């Protein structure tokens, strides 16, 4: 079966350290962290990645009041992605536009807020808001984009824990190949810093980061790493079939070369390096490549003591013995773990490397953990690469879901 070639023609994002691809990339190259300390209900002060985009750029105040933070992030990213793509929006058939957004979770923030609100009224449920259901349905972020942009094609989310950002993109590409839509707005979003439950659960699990300096709290591969910094964020791509993009003379950021999604089937929480390396290997095969063709590997590593080691084992096994191993970096060291947005945002951080051949580093590695010391790590300072033709993006999630996405330089 011959597949259509799928290309990226627009990027819209908000990250804790940037509200556009240009700003985000500049801060990744300059070593600027976006992690700060917030005060969270019941938790107190905790490091977190907070986005500072202008929510009123594309929404009325009333829409912000009624909608969710995830919806607002999605609208901002989708609008920016459409604008960046140069699509002639007015004449476009909105039935043929799909919205596919990866989420780690949705509804925790709104449910916790409502429970807190009725706690002020002795838990009398007559004070429970009628907005609760439209805010907490799992398709909320995609649905808010459809309302805001008047998109009448399919709009839904894909729940895939922290592998979701990659999976949003993969699903968008699949729907384009099936001919279901002509334009896919695909990626991932997170509003998770609004839910104390996620922080508290990571803390109970011994997996929540802490540090006196919040900017140093997210430190994958460092010997002193002590867990995850939870973040919000979003990244949505405009995807099109190559022939459509060429016909309208679109700028092409890169081409979806291959991907793979698999499951560990071993544990609720603990990763499985064997399945992870299988996921990476099969994605490379799916792309028609060999490990030597990969130039940058963006790791999922979240700075948990065990998870980082296991991913390094998985990657090390795939690329072992190469004379020139790929450059390996990590974006969470700058922005924390943007949950459902992580895969999509982390890919965006590396996309400009096709143009400038610079690889952004992993920051906050003061003392590299010897168990994470695999060939190719780019630490603390950006590195110039001889060649950047293929990016490999890992995102893994709870319940053992793994995703690997490979983007290649577009060559006609």
């Amino acid at each position: 079966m011959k597949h259509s070639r799928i290309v990226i023609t627009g990027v819209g994002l908000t990250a804790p350290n940037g509200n556009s691809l240009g700003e985000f990339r500049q801060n990744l190259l300059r070593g600027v962290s976006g992690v700060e300390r917030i005060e969270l209900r019941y938790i107190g002060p905790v490091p977190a990645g907070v986005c500072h985009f202008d929510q009123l750029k594309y929404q009325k105040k009333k829409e912000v009041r009624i909608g969710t933070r995830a919806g607002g992030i999605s609208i901002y990213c989708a609008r920016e992605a459409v604008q960046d793509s140069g699509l002639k929006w007015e004449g476009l058939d909105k039935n043929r536009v799909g919205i596919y957004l990866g989420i780690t979770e949705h509804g925790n923030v709104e449910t916790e807020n409502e429970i807190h609100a009725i706690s002020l009224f002795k838990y009398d449920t007559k004070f429970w808001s009628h907005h609760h259901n439209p805010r907490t349905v799992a398709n909320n972020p995609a649905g808010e984009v459809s309302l805001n942009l008047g998109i009448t094609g399919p709009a839904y989310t894909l729940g895939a824990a922290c592998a979701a950002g990659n999976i949003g993109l993969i699903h968008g590409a699949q729907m384009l190949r099936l001919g279901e839509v002509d334009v896919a707005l695909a990626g991932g979003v997170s509003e998770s810093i609004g839910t104390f439950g996620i922080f508290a659960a990571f803390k109970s699990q011994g997996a929540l980061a802490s540090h006196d300096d919040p900017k140093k709290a997210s430190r994958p591969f460092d010997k002193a790493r002590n867990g995850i910094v939870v973040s919000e964020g979003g990244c949505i791509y405009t995807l099109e079939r190559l022939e459509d993009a060429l016909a309208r003379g679109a700028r092409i950021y890169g081409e979806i070369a291959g991907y793979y999604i698999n499951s560990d089937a071993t544990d609720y929480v603990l990763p499985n390096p064997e399945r992870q390396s299988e996921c990476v290997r099969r994605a490379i095969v799916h792309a028609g490549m060999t490990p030597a063709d990969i130039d940058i590997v963006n790791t999922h590593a979240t700075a948990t003591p065990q998870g980082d080691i296991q991913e390094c084992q998985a990657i090390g096994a795939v690329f072992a013995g190469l004379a020139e191993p790929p450059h390996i970096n990590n974006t969470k060291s700058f922005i924390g773990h943007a949950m459902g947005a992580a895969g999509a945002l982390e890919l965006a951080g590396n996309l400009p490397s096709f143009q400038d051949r610079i690889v952004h580093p992993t920051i906050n590695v003061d003392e590299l953990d010897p168990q994470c010391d695999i060939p190719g790590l780019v630490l603390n300072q950006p590195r110039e690469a001889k060649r950047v033709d293929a990016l490999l993006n890992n995102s893994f999630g709870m319940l053992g879901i793994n995703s690997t996405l490979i983007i290649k330089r577009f060559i006609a």
Partner: protein
Amino acid sequence: MTKEECKKLVLDIIADIAPDEDLGNVKPDVKLRDQLQLDSMDFLDIVMELRKRHGIEVPEADYMQLASLDSCAEYLTPKFNAASTGKA
């Protein structure tokens, strides 16, 4: 509480429910829906805020009493006064 004070409290709620609206020239005798962007969900929010902020219940059968500022004042002022004297 006077009817004018009651209207002010209702407008305070509407300012939060419909934050994009200019409330400087709301005509008290004209239906709120005819001069502001308010839908049925917004009226549910107004009812909820009356309950939360002021302990006032508006049964569904009486929702039409909230149509204009004048009708709000007519209907709600006695409820506010009853609430403040503990007779609600």
